[in-house]
């Protein structure tokens, strides 16, 4: 009744693959379909047609560049049949648009096929009669359009990406046309090949696809074929138009796939905007492999970053080690993530707690299991994964009783598992929830989210400002962990200006009832504890994990945990993954 598309990884990959790539042009010779791929060719025809019928659009079931996976090739054949209803002539009419549609996104949907492209006008420089350069032919092409045909239910973000690729290819072609009439020349070759085949067909009656003949003669045709093939498989397109201009593009939907789900590009972007200096970059390929993939003219900053990055280094440290600005690190990291070459994690350290990702592939027969054993002989993946059934810290997993070499090996395993989206890291989040007042059952103070009451107050104000303006040295001593209780300024109940300000702060954001409850906690009698609690109050809304608090406030974990323990009667604590980076391990469905 409904499509059962969950099981096949390839099927959902198809949702993001184009059906066809088509190149059309418009000029003084009218509208022309220059090239399309995949093309149809007659070898065998479907048994439903009689032997007498020769359908020039019948498909060769062996497939031309079609992946042959069970239902997948049948499925692709259906898609090609959809397109076959459009003859070359009608395609050229509808896709070679009027010039007022040029320079913008072109989107057309006809029944079950969606076409997207970027029609581009060609402007030709005037030909000088005294030009000593080799004879230039008068160009007749006015505009062209590189069009991708997509499935009707393609995601809007996929359509957007395809348009982007079309536009990039168009820019390169426009440039090369201006420089050396590249497009005109290629178009001539394509049309000549088409004419040749038509003549041949008329003479000896054997229909062949003209487009097949174009491929060996025409670099542009080969480029378009390569773009199509790449989009259908890896999602990474790298072309060299006229062996000169590079067009590179990636389809995030193909690259960021975890099982049969993909990370929507918008979610990816949101995550990337929210990463913090305490996060780390984890490369998904070896340093060597990555460096070999970079183009010759890539930025030296990128190379430095790749060479200095490590799973244990956060982005801030990376900036220092690579001698780059933090902003630059963020940008390059985002770029690597977008291209599927890296993910964002929290840097590896002893206290990190990991657990199996709900989407982890734990099947005995998965290709992952095989890779794992190749990488780590003597170990099998399911057994190691079973150890993460309960949350386990890196320290526990490492087992200090083992030899150091063994320890390092186990760390490598954790890195491998993170790279393959098998583990999630759990963080601790804290929420302030005061026991409700007994006297007035109708009082719903605790029901109001703290956020509403804190209101527009800036929550990222450094601690110095929230206490009015004490002198900087005071602030230093006051927040120093080594301060002892006997300091005169901090007598409990004392009238010091700082104590007063601190109380004010509490009042400002909490209800009367909450304030009372907190002040009645034994630990609150210690001004230093109370002050620290007040300072951290805005983190206790369940959106900041301990590591973030530690980073922002420059606190040690033991300090923070002790404080949380002292005020546990008004705090509720839970562990879960960090939603900012969790998309890399468990994508949203």
């Amino acid at each position, binding site marked *: *009744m*409904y499509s059962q598309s969950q099981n096949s990884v390839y099927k959902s990959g198809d949702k993001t693959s184009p059906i066809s790539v088509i190149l059309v042009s418009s000029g003084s010779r009218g509208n022309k379909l220059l090239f399309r791929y995949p093309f149809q060719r007659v070898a065998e025809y479907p048994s439903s047609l009689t032997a007498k019928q020769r359908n020039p659009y019948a498909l060769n079931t062996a497939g031309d560049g079609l992946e042959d996976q069970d239902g997948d090739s049948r499925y692709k054949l259906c898609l090609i049949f959809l397109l076959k209803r459009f003859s070359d002539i009608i395609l050229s009419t509808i896709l070679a648009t009027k010039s007022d549609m040029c320079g913008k996104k072109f989107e057309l949907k006809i029944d079950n096929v969606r076409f997207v492209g970027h029609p581009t006008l060609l402007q030709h420089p005037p030909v000088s009669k005294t030009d000593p350069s080799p004879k230039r032919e008068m160009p007749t092409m006015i505009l062209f359009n590189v069009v991708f045909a997509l499935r009707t239910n393609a995601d809007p973000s996929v359509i957007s990406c395809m348009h982007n690729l079309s536009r990039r290819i168009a820019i390169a072609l426009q440039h090369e046309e201006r420089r050396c009439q590249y497009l005109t020349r290629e178009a001539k070759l394509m049309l000549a090949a088409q004419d040749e085949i038509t003549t041949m067909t008329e003479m000896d009656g054997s229909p062949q696809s003209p487009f097949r003949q174009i491929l060996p003669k025409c670099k542009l045709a080969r480029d378009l074929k390569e773009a199509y093939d790449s989009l259908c498989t890896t999602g990474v397109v790298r072309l060299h138009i006229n062996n000169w201009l590079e067009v590179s593009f990636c389809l995030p939907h193909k690259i960021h796939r975890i099982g049969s789900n993909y990370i929507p590009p918008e979610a990816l972007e949101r995550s990337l905007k929210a990463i913090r200096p305490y996060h780390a970059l984890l490369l998904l390929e070896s340093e060597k492999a990555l460096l070999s993939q970079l183009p010759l003219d890539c930025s030296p900053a990128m190379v430095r970053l790749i060479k200095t990055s490590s799973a244990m280094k956060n982005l801030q440290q990376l900036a220092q080690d690579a001698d780059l600005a933090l902003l630059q690190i963020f940008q390059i990291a985002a770029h690597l993530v977008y291209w599927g070459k890296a993910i964002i994690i929290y840097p590896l350290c002893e206290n990190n707690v990991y657990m199996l990702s709900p989407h982890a592939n734990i099947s005995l027969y998965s290709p992952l299991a095989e890779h794992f054993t190749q990488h780590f002989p003597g170990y099998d993946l399911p057994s190691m994964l*079973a150890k993460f059934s309960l949350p386990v810290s890196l320290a526990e997993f490492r087992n200090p009783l083992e030899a150091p070499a063994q320890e390092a090996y186990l760390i490598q395993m954790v890195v491998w598992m993170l790279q393959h989206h098998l583990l999630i890291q759990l963080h601790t989040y804290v929420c302030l929830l005061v026991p409700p007042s007994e006297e007035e059952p109708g009082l719903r103070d605790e029901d109001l*989210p703290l956020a509403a009451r804190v209101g527009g107050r800036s929550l990222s104000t450094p601690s110095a400002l929230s206490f009015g303006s004490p002198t900087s040295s005071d602030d230093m001593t006051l927040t120093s962990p080594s301060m002892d209780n006997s300091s005169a300024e901090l007598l409990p109940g004392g009238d010091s200006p700082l104590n007063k300000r601190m109380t004010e702060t509490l009042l400002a954001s909490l209800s009367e009832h909450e304030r009372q409850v907190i002040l009645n906690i034994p630990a609150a009698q210690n001004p230093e504890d109370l002050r620290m609690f007040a300072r951290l109050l805005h983190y206790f809304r369940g959106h900041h994990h301990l590591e973030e608090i530690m980073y922002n406030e420059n606190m040690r974990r033991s300090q923070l945990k002790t404080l949380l323990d002292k005020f546990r009667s008004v705090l509720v604590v839970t562990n*879960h993954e960090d939603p900012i980076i969790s998309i890399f391990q468990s994508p949203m469905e």
Partner: protein
Amino acid sequence: NVSSCECIFFSEFHPTLGPKITYQVPEEYISRELFDTVQVYIITKPELQNKLITVTAMGKKLIGCPVCIEHKKYSRNALLFNLGLVCDAQTNTCALEPIVKKLSGYLTTLELESGFISKEESKHKLLPIMSTLLEELNATGACTLPIDESNTIHLKLIQLRKDPPIVQEYDVPVFTQCKDHFIKSQWDLTTQQILPYIDGFRHIQKISAEADVELNLVRIAVQNLLYYGVVTLVSIFQYSNVYCTTPKVQSLIDDKSIQEECLNYVTKQGHKRASLRDVFQLYCGLSPGTTVRDLCSRYSLQLQNVDERRLIQFGLMKSLIRRLQKYPVKVIRDERSRPPRLYTGCHSYDEICCKTGITYKELDERLENDSNIVICWK
């Protein structure tokens, strides 16, 4: 604005003036420029006739279905027209397509029966018809409009929904709204028969057995209910189950409406309303390694006013918590034995117990002592 449709237009091929917009509601909505750009997709060549065509230009989307009626009586031997809709370019217009198709069918019928379009007297009835259509589609998403004695236009905007997941025999359907709001008579007989057994605790296999309906029929009926958002799926409840919180649990604190809904849902019948603190503590008390039974003994105070089964149900429905399932994997086996069928890491305890009929406890006993098998929780 239910249909987000901004304009309806009627375009035709005029014998002397060529393609033009004869009527549009509201007037002057489609500019001369826009029509010039897209007319080749509105009044089309023969190959494109009767196809649903959506073209995007100048920030607008035009959806139409060009019609061609051939007959000697028409000048140029053919009547070409297209009744289409216009929306903003960002709109998802898939739901409007069947409406455009239907309209083209209606007009074709009207023309063939009584020359509705080719005769001037009847043609300008189109304008008030289009006006009403636009108004009603935007107001309610439906329109019923008598045209003449024998023809009435019935249109309804059907929102396309996402395909629902496959329903497994160990899944538990639970109503998303109060069951009392459910009008039985609107649904098919199978659904009506299984309805009393959908209580948020019975799984598909059990419903099938108790309602005496074949398993696959139950699965399909529930899948249908899923499609319309009437039910959602949760997992089987047992006191031995283990759950853990998701980042969405914080929405209980941030979102007042979820809070209200939750506290109403989980409070024990006839008891004082549970407090947010208690409920939040209970959810946060769920973690790997902790069973529901453990939770009940540790948090007995908080559970005074809370029904733990409904607590879990609500948490799953709103994705505040998730279930940790057990997956046995046979990692060591000698060459001679058969490859494992169920202990591959692909089948949870829920599934294995459902399929084989053994209980959790029995399965636990079997596997705990088998050193060749590891258990993964996720």
